[in-house]
């Protein structure tokens, strides 16, 4: 049996004095899409942040291995270069910084890390324009400031665009579906489907079933009060849609 791409064991983490993760166990093999669902405050975003190495979180117990190495020992930028991508729930605006410039810098940082030659401006534009077409984004986005003045939906599309250009081994998408209208949801879902491949894994953090109508997950996990309280196949998401979370919360208490 091969080791899973991502392996989380008994993960505990705090923010300030509050324990937000209380023993997460999760294995995500390459080639699979896992959905993590759960009510507000259950720890979904915290889990994404801890995986990406966001400052402010302290891991108090447990381990995370990614491609067989200790992920928690790496600083955030090295996790990214190793192929961990976080799609932000609230992508931040960076005024004056060209969207294309950041993306190319990101791509080249990863390529340098893999001892691959950097892409020049021409090849980069060819690549990014093809991906933008897929995301139905206007080319003017390239020269705009990073997320500057973007609508909520535009920001989310931009996250998926970045993901498609960077082609990470593990994409953790934190509520990428929230705030999207139906059309934008379909575009974002199509983008996610494009990345699906036997060597990659995708973790979708979401409240709702509707994204999963377009991206069928291999596994669904329910997070409540910092723990995974139920795991199942795609049918679990449908059940949650019908019954809500309350029936599972009692188990977690």
């Amino acid at each position, binding site marked *: 049996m091969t080791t899973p791409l991502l392996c989380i064991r008994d993960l505990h983490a705090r923010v300030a004095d509050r324990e937000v993760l209380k023993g997460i166990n999760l294995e995500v093999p390459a080639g699979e899409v896992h959905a993590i669902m759960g009510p507000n405050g259950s720890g979904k975003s915290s889990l994404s942040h801890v995986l990406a190495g966001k400052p402010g979180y302290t891991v108090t117990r447990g381990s995370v291995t990614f491609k067989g190495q200790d992920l928690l020992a790496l600083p955030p930028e090295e996790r*990214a270069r190793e192929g961990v991508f976080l799609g932000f729930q609230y992508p931040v605006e960076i005024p004056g910084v060209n969207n294309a410039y950041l993306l190319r810098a990101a791509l080249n940082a990863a390529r340098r890390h893999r001892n691959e030659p950097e892409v020049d401006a021409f090849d980069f534009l060819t690549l990014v324009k093809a991906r933008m077409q897929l995301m139905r984004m206007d080319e003017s986005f390239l020269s705009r400031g990073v997320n500057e003045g973007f609508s909520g939906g535009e920001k989310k599309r931009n996250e998926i665009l970045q993901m498609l250009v960077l082609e990470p081994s593990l994409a953790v998408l934190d509520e990428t579906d929230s705030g999207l209208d139906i059309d934008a949801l379909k575009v974002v879902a199509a983008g996610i489907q494009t990345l699906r491949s036997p060597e990659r894994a995708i973790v979708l953090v979401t409240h709702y079933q509707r994204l999963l109508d377009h991206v069928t997950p291999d596994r669904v996990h329910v997070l409540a009060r910092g723990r995974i309280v139920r795991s199942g196949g795609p049918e679990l998401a449908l059940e949650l849609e019908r019954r809500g979370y309350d029936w599972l919360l009692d188990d977690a208490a």
Partner: protein
Amino acid sequence: MSTQDPSLDALLARGYQHGFVTDIESDTVAPGLDRDTVRFISAKKGEPQFLLDWRLRALDRWFEMKEPHWPKLHYTPIDYQDISYYSAPKAKTDGPKSLADVDPKLLATYEKLGVPLHERARLAGVAVDAVFDSVSVATTFKDRLSAAGVIFCPFSEAVQKHPELIERWLGTVVPYGDNYYAALNSAVFTDGSFVYIPKGVRCPMELSTYFRINAAKTGQFERTLIVADEGSHVSYLEGCTAPMRDENQLHAAVVELLALDDAQIKYSTVQNWYPGDENGVGGIYNFVTKRGECRGRNSRISWTQVETGSAITWKYPSCVLRGENSVGEFYSVAVTANYQQADTGTKMIHIGANTRSTIVSKGISAGHAQNTYRGLVSVMPGAHGARNFTQCDSLLLGSDCGAHTIPYIEVKNPQAIVEHEASTSRISEEQLFYCLQRGLSQEDAINLIVGGFCKTVFRELPMEFAVEAQNLLAVSLEGAVG
């Protein structure tokens, strides 16, 4: 303009004339400043009487003045009598013989900044004779300029060749008694640049290009005068992104810009003098007076500055908007790291009707640095329809630095529209993490964010300097955070 009778000055001067004749052979004058020092400098330069008289009036005025202490700057008092006010340019053979003899650290910095190879030797002070490329390029530029009728030469050369222009315009924008440092400069300046653009002429090149290749070491009291005659255009860049070695701690330059009817002057500065070490030891004190006057109708003066150097910067490039419909602009990025202090800003004086001004100031502080924006927008009673827009943003890196914004607004015309926006922010953890999560290093992330913060100013720079300025920012903030 004179506060004294010139003939009296001449009389007084006579009594000392013999006293310094023999000294004129020497290359340096002993520390100290009195009327003899000024006479010595003027004689060394072979200046006409009017200029000597003007210098002496400036000196007399300076003796009556007090060093200003209103800026938010702290430094050990300067002993003005302990400075030598003249030393002849060093012989060319003093410098390193070739790039191989130059401090590798300095060369590494040029590399990072992207300074063209042929300029590195000159900047590093390699004996000029060895730098053939630059000399020939400079000659070509010179031919093109003179074909257009543009005068661009060292100030001392202009005094010899065009004394009538100097006598007519010198001190008409910054009078010798304007302020303490301007008075000192007027008395003892040794050289600088003079530019005259004739009527209707659009200067055929950025004077920056020329300047970078041909810049002479002009010393600590530099004097620049740019006159744009009716309908002319000129873009001038002072300084260089590359660090220049300089042994003088005190610098007090004066820059005067004069735009007549329909003329435009764009003056860009990249200042990267030695800021002192990481403990704040050493470093240059930079007390500069820069002022432009839009004397003519529809004239325009733009100041763009990127200030990253000097231990202390005291500098307020200003515009006097006298001509109707004239426009003044000020775009500034001031970076202070370690123990640097900057008190900088601008003054926009609206005198004529329908005058407009724009101020965009970006201050960045890191380490223990203090960065102050001090600006004045003044609208005089006759400035009907005057407009000003001011935006002052400060960015803090780390928790031991400071940013201060001190805007003064005086409006004496009820129709004027004056807008002021200000913000102070810390570099956002969210922005930083976003970049790190995309794989950028901490340093690249900071440079990216700071570069974005400064973008509105950088795009005002001449094209070839915009990239260098961005790199300069990165070098200046190296190790400032982390």
